[in-house]
């Protein structure tokens, strides 16, 4: 598992090789099993394989450098947020999006698929393209496909990051 976590990368260039439906279902299942606040299940997923829909999604998503063969959109269901009387600003809602996203990206990596999250898109335009109702808000698009062998836009951190450099033990040392 740790090896999967270590070797996963954000894939920004993908081939046009199709993604099998069964593989996409595995990724979706990984999202379903993600930890979530209060086990409230506030997320809904929209899975896309239609090339025309994917092309339109890319057009309304300036941050989507990939041309993915598939995509999953993670949405918050605000009706469910109300049902469970959760304040709209509760951080747990955003954390749920993150945990599901990471589960899905790791699941994709485990079956040799590349993935890359995109948050730079017009929510309203995407809503129109995917027929997403008002009670759902699209939060992140996970592009899924086969990584192109080259042409990855690599973002190199300014300084090397290790778990040690991120961690303080017992009390924050500053």
């Amino acid at each position, binding site marked *: 598992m740790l090896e999967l976590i270590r070797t996963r990368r954000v894939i920004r260039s993908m081939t046009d090789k199709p993604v099998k439906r069964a593989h996409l279902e595995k990724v979706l299942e990984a999202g379903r099993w993600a930890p979530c606040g209060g086990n409230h299940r506030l997320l809904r997923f929209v899975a896309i394989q239609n090339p025309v829909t994917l092309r339109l999604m890319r*057009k*309304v*998503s*300036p*941050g989507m*450098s990939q041309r993915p063969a598939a995509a999953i959109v993670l949405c918050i269901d605000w009706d469910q947020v109300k049902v469970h009387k959760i304040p709209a600003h509760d951080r747990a809602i955003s954390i749920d999006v993150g945990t599901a996203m990471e589960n899905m990206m790791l699941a994709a990596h485990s079956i040799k698929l590349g993935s890359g999250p995109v948050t*730079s*898109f*017009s929510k*309203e*335009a995407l809503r129109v393209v995917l027929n997403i109702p008002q009670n759902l808000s699209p939060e992140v698009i996970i592009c899924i496909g086969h990584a192109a062998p080259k042409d990855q*836009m*690599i*973002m*190199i951190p*300014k300084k090397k990051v290790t778990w040690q450099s991120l961690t303080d033990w017992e009390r924050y040392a500053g």
Partner: protein
Amino acid sequence: MAGSMALNEEEAYELLTFLVTSARIQQDEPASYGSLRLLTAAERLSGFMMEHSSSGNRGFLAGIQEDIEQMTDSMADVERFVTSLDELCRVVAQHLVEQNGLSGGAS
């Protein structure tokens, strides 16, 4: 060059959509992303233009695309990024000058 099409209707709509959606998301993103979005638009535009332009301009457009690709890869280094942007502005302006027969000194 005058009167020739630089992009077809589908390409124009793609660019239009990119610009409009970029304008919206820019409200939620760091200011520096604005330059990135404009460069991406310029990269796409030059890609479309290459399909329709004369062979004389293709080299220039290909160079623009290459420059933009390198620049977006090195955005973390702000100073270098700004220097590269200035250089790209000079390249584009020089191309315009030459296209309009203005090269050479004042007469």
